[in-house]
């Protein structure tokens, strides 16, 4: 029989090989591979009993990582597609997801989210009950490798998030290709400072399972100032990091007496300050660093070999094994090394497309010759002679802040829905904004009130911390907001005094 090519086979294989080994931990509890696999089988039967059938959707939102892991594997076993939402996805954003993917079941312990689900006719299951589910030997209908496994809601150039759909096969390929580059070990403890609702966090689960390692998930409080202590008490050997956490670690180790015994730090999300990496290497002699780049639509695009940044500063590494990345101009013609254009990705890591968005899917996942899918990333940069990728920026209005992918369009549309806001524009984090997103608004409201009134319209983490009132938004000849002029305006001394 060929090896099972469905997502939950990773957990099953690890559970068969070392059932007593710890698979997942938090400061509150820990689960062995055996217990996690058994619980997810019991939970799959609960999902079936709640009416979940092949191809249905299951939305999961709970701060409890073990419940997320159990529920998503249960959905996979039941042949359903799961979507893990950040626990800040409530109100309007949650209603959008429920309308968009029409789940059969939502797994949540948040009373507000449960109430929203009930209004939308979605059955609610308590994650605590899923955790306690007893396994039965009754067989479950096995999904096909080409079936949908997962929806990941992500901000795009539209005013509302859309879901990237991945099949079992695509997720397995991506996880195995990444693990072949990172080489997590059975005796590793992978510290993940992000919740499983991020695809970065989610895939740490599968990478850990492939290695038979333990994944430890830190809370937002634990990965703040107490990060060093959290790493130490969890026994972490690998930190799956993003720039904000890496910067924090560098700041903390500079003033610490002892340093955590980390052997590997991986970083994705945005470029790191080279000074930060230098400081970390100096403070933690055992540390290797692997820089990475990717987007949800293909999970990961490139990974640097360990410490490859020393030889090729500024690069994000090589395409995943078995995949290809190349650079094209505006007409889609391939460009030679050194020339800047859009990155295009080909390979089994290119996901299926966007849920119920045929036009956007056709635009971003075009098929060459009408047959062979590729991914237009919307990201720009160049490759060197050896295929190492150098990222320069995005074409559209997406930006990353605190590890979250945020769409300026989405933030602006939420701001404009606030009563009393006439116009709004977002400046992405960059050198002219002290690396923090800034919301410029035309309004008579006080800036904190604008931000407060945006809560509930979009997730808190998408709301810029800085809001600056302006008389009018400068526009260019096309009538679009002139972001350069806007940056000039918000940096002008006149406005600074007015703000004070």
């Amino acid at each position, binding site marked *: 029989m060929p090896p099972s090519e469905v997502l939950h086979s990773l957990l099953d294989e690890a559970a068969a090989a070392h059932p007593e080994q710890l698979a997942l931990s938090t400061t509150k509890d820990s689960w062995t591979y055996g217990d996690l696999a058994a619980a997810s089988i019991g939970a799959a039967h609960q999902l079936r009993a709640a009416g979940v059938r092949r191809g249905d959707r299951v939305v999961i939102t709970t701060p409890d990582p073990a419940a997320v892991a159990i529920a998503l594997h249960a959905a996979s076993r039941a042949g359903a597609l799961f979507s893990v939402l950040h626990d800040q996805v409530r109100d309007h954003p949650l209603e959008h997801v429920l309308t968009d993917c029409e789940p059969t079941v939502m797994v949540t312990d948040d009373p507000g989210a449960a109430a929203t689900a009930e209004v939308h006719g979605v059955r609610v299951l308590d994650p605590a009950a899923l955790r306690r589910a007893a396994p039965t030997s009754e067989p479950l209908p096995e999904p096909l490798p080409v079936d949908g496994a997962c929806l990941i809601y992500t901000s795009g150039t539209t005013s509302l998030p859309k879901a990237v759909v991945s099949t079992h096969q695509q997720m397995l390929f991506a996880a195995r290709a990444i693990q072949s580059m990172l080489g997590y070990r059975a005796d590793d403890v992978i510290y993940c400072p992000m919740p499983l609702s991020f695809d970065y966090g989610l895939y740490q689960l599968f990478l850990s399972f492939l290695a038979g390692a333990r994944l430890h998930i830190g809370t937002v*409080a634990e990965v703040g100032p107490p*990060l060093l202590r959290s790493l130490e008490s969890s026994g972490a050997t690998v930190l799956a990091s993003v720039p904000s956490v890496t910067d924090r670690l560098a*700041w903390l180790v500079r003033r610490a007496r002892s340093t955590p015994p980390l052997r590997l730090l991986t970083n994705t999300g945005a470029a790191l300050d080279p000074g930060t990496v230098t400081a970390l290497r100096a403070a933690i002699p055992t540390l290797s660093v692997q820089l990475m780049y990717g987007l949800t639509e293909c999970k990961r695009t490139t990974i640097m070999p360990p410490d490859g940044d020393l030889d090729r500063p500024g690069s994000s590494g090589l395409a995943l094994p078995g995949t290809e990345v190349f650079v094209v101009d505006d007409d889609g013609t391939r460009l030679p090394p050194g020339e800047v254009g859009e990155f295009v990705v080909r390979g089994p890591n290119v996901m299926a497309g966007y849920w119920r968005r045929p036009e956007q899917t056709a635009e971003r996942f075009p098929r060459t010759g009408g047959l062979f899918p590729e991914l237009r990333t919307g990201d720009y940069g160049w490759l060197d002679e050896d295929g190492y990728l150098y990222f320069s920026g995005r074409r559209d209005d997406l930006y990353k802040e*605190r590890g979250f992918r945020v769409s300026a369009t989405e933030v602006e549309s939420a701001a404009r829905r606030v009563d009393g806001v006439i116009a709004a524009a977002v400046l992405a984090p960059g050198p002219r904004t002290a690396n923090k997103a800034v919301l410029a608004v035309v309004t008579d409201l006080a*800036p904190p009130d604008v931000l407060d009134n945006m809560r509930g319209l979009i997730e808190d983490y998408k709301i810029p*911390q800085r809001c600056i009132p302006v008389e009018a938004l400068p526009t260019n000849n096309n009538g679009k907001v002139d972001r350069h002029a806007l940056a000039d305006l918000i940096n002008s001394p006149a406005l600074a005094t007015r703000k004070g």
Partner: protein
Amino acid sequence: MNRTDVTTALETALTTVLDRPVTGLEGETRLFDDLHLDSTTMLEMLMELEDSLGLEVDPEELEAEDFETVDTFTAFALAQLSNTQAA
């Protein structure tokens, strides 16, 4: 240095970090849920207080529980300040 001094310094630090006026903090105010701090702004707040209060934190002694509410944080800061003075 007493609770009021620390709370006032905390309000000033948060006003800078969050770039909006923060006043009238109550003891039970939760730093994450009510003030919408995140793990990054939490550290920025701490750095501001190092400057304003002369607080010297030991990164290996910081615990997540200290950063839950204004009360827990104030108690932590006062304990750190008395340690610094004693040392």
